[in-house]
């Protein structure tokens, strides 16, 4: 058998970079000079035509950032980032800001088409009318074709287009780029921006506050159930550019919204920095469901290149009986540093975190969540599935705490890790703190290895090795996949399969 194995290995090496979205697009861009200074921030703010309060907010964050140190507590290793060697602003030249679809550079539309994200609303509408029975059997390759999803497309530093705006506006929902929101809805932005993740929060969040270039803004007014899925699609195209997006979602009393974020970047030898901030605010009886399918370029087989993903995501269950649910499928990035959290401030509020983190090659993942119980009868649930293959390191880091006044706080945590091969590592770092004696926290954790027995059994039924591993892994992550909006569950399963290609042999 060694001869056969050798051939397989050789073939695999030729096609080692299986990252499907690694293409780059030549588009005329408008860039700020390299590096970071107050002048650059003024430049960004001026480019975006921002009011002076916004510029002041940014400058204050920048001055704060200068006093901060890069955190080193995460279990990740990377060479020191030179923050002066990054472009903080890059915009496709022909689009100074969000415009109607007809104004968008056709080259950019082509990129999104290539990624399988039709921005043309009629295409999406056409997808709805399709009720061919064969579609029910074989889920479409492209989830964006199968449902009605409003998309905000962010290309490097700017939002290039947002679809379905009119229809959403009829329901009273505001869905636009954050730059537009700053200009058009300053009162809402001023009220909520930084109210969940303050400018002083942490090194990367503070940097983001100073230089964020675009992102999405969602406002769902009192009593409104958002009539469709909202989605933002991030694409990092320019070389040496950082992407710093800022997303703010507000659900007023009794409102409901489900939001999905997806991301890709071209394949490059250099590392690229992505430092996003996402803030969610749920008032009384409101519910926000936030799903992420993160597929940034992870680097090549030797660990060269890839995205550094340092993200701060936090939801504030500000109102009573409010609910925030994070679901994430993380397959990309060279380094992931990300802890979507919930502050359970309102009484009877609840938070959920469902996560699948897949690492392969030389990827390093340090991800988890924080559930901060402040209100009475608050509950939280954490289901985390880490899958490590190749030479990767995969860490779950979680914090659950109950404040003195958080009577009857409840948490259930389940962290499972699955190892594929013997060169990778999985680590679980849970931290629990209850300052109220009525709190009940449960924690379960397992680490297992895909056994040779299981793999042999599945292969004996005629299922090739990589499909066998994908099948076993998809069984392992099933609890979490079920939490994703249905159309995306199929995409997520495929993505997990692709990410694990080359993990065996």
């Amino acid at each position, binding site marked *: 058998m060694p001869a*056969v194995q050798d051939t397989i290995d050789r073939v695999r090496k030729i096609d080692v970079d299986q990252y499907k979205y690694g293409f780059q697009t030549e588009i005329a861009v408008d860039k700020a000079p390299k590096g970071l200074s107050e002048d650059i921030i003024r430049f960004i703010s001026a480019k975006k035509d921002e009011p002076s309060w916004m510029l002041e907010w940014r400058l204050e964050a920048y001055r704060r950032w200068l006093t901060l140190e890069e955190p080193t507590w995460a279990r990740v290793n990377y060479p020191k980032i030179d923050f002066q060697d990054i472009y903080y602003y890059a915009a496709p030249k022909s689009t100074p800001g969000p415009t109607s679809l007809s104004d968008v550079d056709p080259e950019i539309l082509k990129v999104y088409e290539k990624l399988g994200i039709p921005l043309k609303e009629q295409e999406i509408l056409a997808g709805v009318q399709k009720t061919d029975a064969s579609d029910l059997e074989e889920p479409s390759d492209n989830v964006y074709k199968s449902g009605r999803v409003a998309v905000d497309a962010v290309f490097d530093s700017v939002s290039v287009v947002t679809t379905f705006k009119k229809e959403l506006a009829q329901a009273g929902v505001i869905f636009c780029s954050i730059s537009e929101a700053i200009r058009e809805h300053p009162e809402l932005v001023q009220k909520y921006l930084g109210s969940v993740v303050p400018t002083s929060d942490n090194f990367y969040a503070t940097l983001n506050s100073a230089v964020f270039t675009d992102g999405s803004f969602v406002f769902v007014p009192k009593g409104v159930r958002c009539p469709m899925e909202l989605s933002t699609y991030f694409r990092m195209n320019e070389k040496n550019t950082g992407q710093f997006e800022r997303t703010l979602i507000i659900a007023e009393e009794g409102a409901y919204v489900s939001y999905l974020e997806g991301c890709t970047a071209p394949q490059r030898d250099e590392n690229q920095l992505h430092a996003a901030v996402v803030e969610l605010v749920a008032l009384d009886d409101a519910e926000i469901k936030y799903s992420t399918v993160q597929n940034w370029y992870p680097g090549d087989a030797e660990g060269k290149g890839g995205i550094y993903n340092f993200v701060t995501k936090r939801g504030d269950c500000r109102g009573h009986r409010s609910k925030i649910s994070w679901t994430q499928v993380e397959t990309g990035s060279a380094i992931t540093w990300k802890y979507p959290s919930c502050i359970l401030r309102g009484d009877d509020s609840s938070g959920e975190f469902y996560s699948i983190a897949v690492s392969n090659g030389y990827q390093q993942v340090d991800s988890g969540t924080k559930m901060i119980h402040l209100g009475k009868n608050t509950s939280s649930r954490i289901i985390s599935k880490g899958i490590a293959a190749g030479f990767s390191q995969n860490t779950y880091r979680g914090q659950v705490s109950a404040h003195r006044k958080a009577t009857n706080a409840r948490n259930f945590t389940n962290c499972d890790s699955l190892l594929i091969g013997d060169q990778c590592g999985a680590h679980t770092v849970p931290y629990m703190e209850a300052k109220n004696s009525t709190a009940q926290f449960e924690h379960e954790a397992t680490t297992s290895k895909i056994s040779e027995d299981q793999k042999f059994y599945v292969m004996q039924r*005629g*299922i090739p*090795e990589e499909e066998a591993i994908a*099948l076993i892994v998809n069984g*392992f992550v099933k609890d979490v996949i079920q939490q994703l909006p249905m159309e995306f569950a199929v995409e997520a399963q495929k993505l997990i399969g692709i990410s694990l290609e080359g993990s065996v042999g």
Partner: protein
Amino acid sequence: MLEIRNLHARIVDDGTEIIRGLNLTVKAGEVAAIMGPNGSGKSTLSYILAGREDYEVTEGDILYNGQSILEMDPAERATSGIFLAFQYPMEIPGVATMEFLKVAMNEQRKARGQEPLKIPEFLKRVKEAAASLSMDMAMLKRPLNVGFSGGEKKRAEILQMKLLEPKLCVLDETDSGLDIDALKIVSDGVNALRAPDRAFLVITHYQRLLEHIVPDSVHVLYRGQVIKSGDKSLALDLEANGYAGVIGEAA
């Protein structure tokens, strides 16, 4: 259909030789029983036929329809028609039995250049096969083998065998852990699959199974070799007199 020639094989990890010059020929349509005391290499033989990597063939060859299969991985062997009903079927958490059946059937079809089965056709086949084994369809919604009783696991193995329609079926101690009723259902399932173009290698400890699945030939395995072959009366002889006589004869 199957020709094992002077096969020598050892455990990769520690080099222990388990199969020591084994010869065996099984023709299409034949049901061959492999019997032998504990540790004689019966289960190892089934693993080697299915291509398990923990064993290394050091000498000899295994020919299946005249072609050596030693260079083929387990999935390729399965696709070419070799099926192993496991003594201890593995649990696959989170993967519904039905889903597993669909993936396995369609992967094999794909490897043979056939279109995947349409859902209604797939369901029809599964329903029929499950009914013939007195299996409840509700069970097929559960993750494969997870929480199945010993009898349910063995039935699930035969169900897979029926649906995958292999040409060479290796049954590794399929009777272990079965009560009489289950043994009958499983045996009937196997008997229904007997066909002129299909061969069976039935590995068992006891004559009991062979009362239900009547073999055409019986082979006694001892220390990694076939030391005696005969017809079904050999099994009865072993049942009555134990292995000692046969082993003594060979020595």
